[in-house]
């Protein structure tokens, strides 16, 4: 895989990948991944266009998280083609991968704030290796403050993660994701573990950020409310393959029992 060129035009023609004049930022083709005897992904396909919000829905253990981790090189797929921002992940060396990752924001399921660091240090952490991307600023404080203002938590700059509530943690994590001004943001269950009101706040925040920075978002969730509010397009992941695709309205009205199971209240 590693020695092959980044694109495979015969199998995946580029013409297929534009829609309404938008470039594809993420392309996944025939993704396979299994853990021991368990096949999690069995030929999954996905395309995310620029400035688009795509929600991937699936049951727990359906391989959503595995798929999203393959996108940033945290996991290696058994086979398949993964391309982000025009670069094939499996063909990248460590440095190129790090470079690419600075353009991908990743919001982890449990916020994944570094417990031993203050909020400020948490936000500064991605800047350790990616300062040059922001023009090598001498002082990182304005960047940290800007990111915190985006999520409305400027006052929490010197707090420790342990002192924050779940909702605040999620927002700080979002601020940390935004600090490098990524072009794509991957959300792994952004509302999991939050009460409905806080979840709504986070969803509102996600929408605002998307409008402000014009990023493309790939959102993984099993929260129907989240999907309804955020999504422009929804993709259902069932048994390791994409089962259905469409807008919220289209899918909510679908009579297929497997589709219906997601939207039944």
């Amino acid at each position, binding site marked *: 895989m590693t020695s092959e060129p980044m694109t495979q035009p015969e199998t995946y023609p580029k013409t297929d990948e534009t829609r309404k004049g938008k470039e594809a930022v993420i392309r996944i083709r025939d993704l396979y991944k299994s853990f021991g005897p368990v096949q999690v992904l069995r030929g999954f396909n996905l395309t995310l266009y620029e400035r688009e919000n795509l929600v991937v829905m699936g049951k727990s253990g359906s391989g959503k998280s595995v798929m999203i981790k393959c996108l940033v090189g945290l996991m290696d797929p058994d086979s398949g083609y993964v391309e982000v921002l025009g670069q094939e992940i499996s063909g990248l060396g*460590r440095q190129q991968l790090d470079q690419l990752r600075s353009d991908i924001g990743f919001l982890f399921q449990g916020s994944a*704030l570094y*417990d*031993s660091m203050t909020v400020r240090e948490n936000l500064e952490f991605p800047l350790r290796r*990616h300062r040059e991307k922001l023009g090598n600023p001498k002082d990182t404080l304005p960047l940290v403050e800007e990111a915190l203002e985006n999520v409305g938590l400027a006052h929490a700059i010197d707090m420790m993660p342990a002192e924050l509530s779940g909702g605040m943690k999620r927002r700080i994590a979002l601020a940390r994701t935004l600090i490098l001004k990524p072009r794509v943001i991957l959300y792994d269950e952004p509302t999991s573990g939050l009460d409905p009101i806080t979840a709504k706040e986070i969803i509102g925040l996600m929408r605002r950020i998307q409008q402000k920075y014009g990023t493309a978002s790939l959102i993984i969730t099993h929260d129907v409310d989240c999907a309804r509010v955020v999504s422009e397009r929804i993709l259902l992941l069932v048994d390791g393959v994409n089962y259905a695709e469409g807008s919220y309205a289209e899918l909510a009205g679908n009579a297929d029992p497997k589709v219906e199971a997601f939207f039944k209240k």
Partner: protein
Amino acid sequence: MNNVASIKDRVYLFLAEIGELAAFAGRFFREVARPPYEFRELLRQCYQVGNRSLTLVLVTGFIIGLVLTLQSRPTLIEFGAVSWMPNMVGISIVREIGPVITALICAGRIASGMGAELGSMRVTEQIDAMEVSGTNPFKYLVATRILATTLMLPLLVVFGDLIALFGSALVENLKGAVSFRLYFNTVFEALSYGDLIPATVKSFFFGFVIGLVGTYKGYYCKKGTAGVGKAANTAVVIASLLLFFVDFVAVFVSDIFYDL
């Protein structure tokens, strides 16, 4: 039949564990040699390992010195060799007891701490978060910690040795009216580089083992809170066992090089 299979499985798992640990150690040496170096984090970890363990090491060392002397006194008196106390205690502490006790304490404190800390970082995806933020978590979390324990343990051993000798001298001073000056003079006369150098070299390996096992268990922690607990627990158990093994080998090797 089932029993036989399970023994076979256990052996298999045991070998797999050793292999993984060795690969982990190999990765450490590769990563630690290659830039970028996480120097600040190394200092932070040195502080965590060194200064934060010092009190515990001092207290334990002092008590060990005290107890060793109190326990040996009656026997030495019986042989009329109580004036040999500094020689006996000095050599046994510097050669063996100091490094081993300090290392075991540090295995309990540091290896479990690292197992739990890295374990919870793994479980809450903090390690993944580091990876995607462009910082190599192995370098940042693992290499710095192993290096810190390797560098700090010999120093802790020095402190532990000294306080243990002080505890022993205190007993001799109170019970046998031996002056501290005479006690330490005798100790240093009894000691040679053949005692000090192998013990110090051994301490580096002890530190390496503690850091290695602690970070290994944490870094490959299984999902869930139980996984974190297990990581911390097995880190202590395996580190302690490995310490004794390393000690055994070290005694053999130092016997070859320092036939004194």
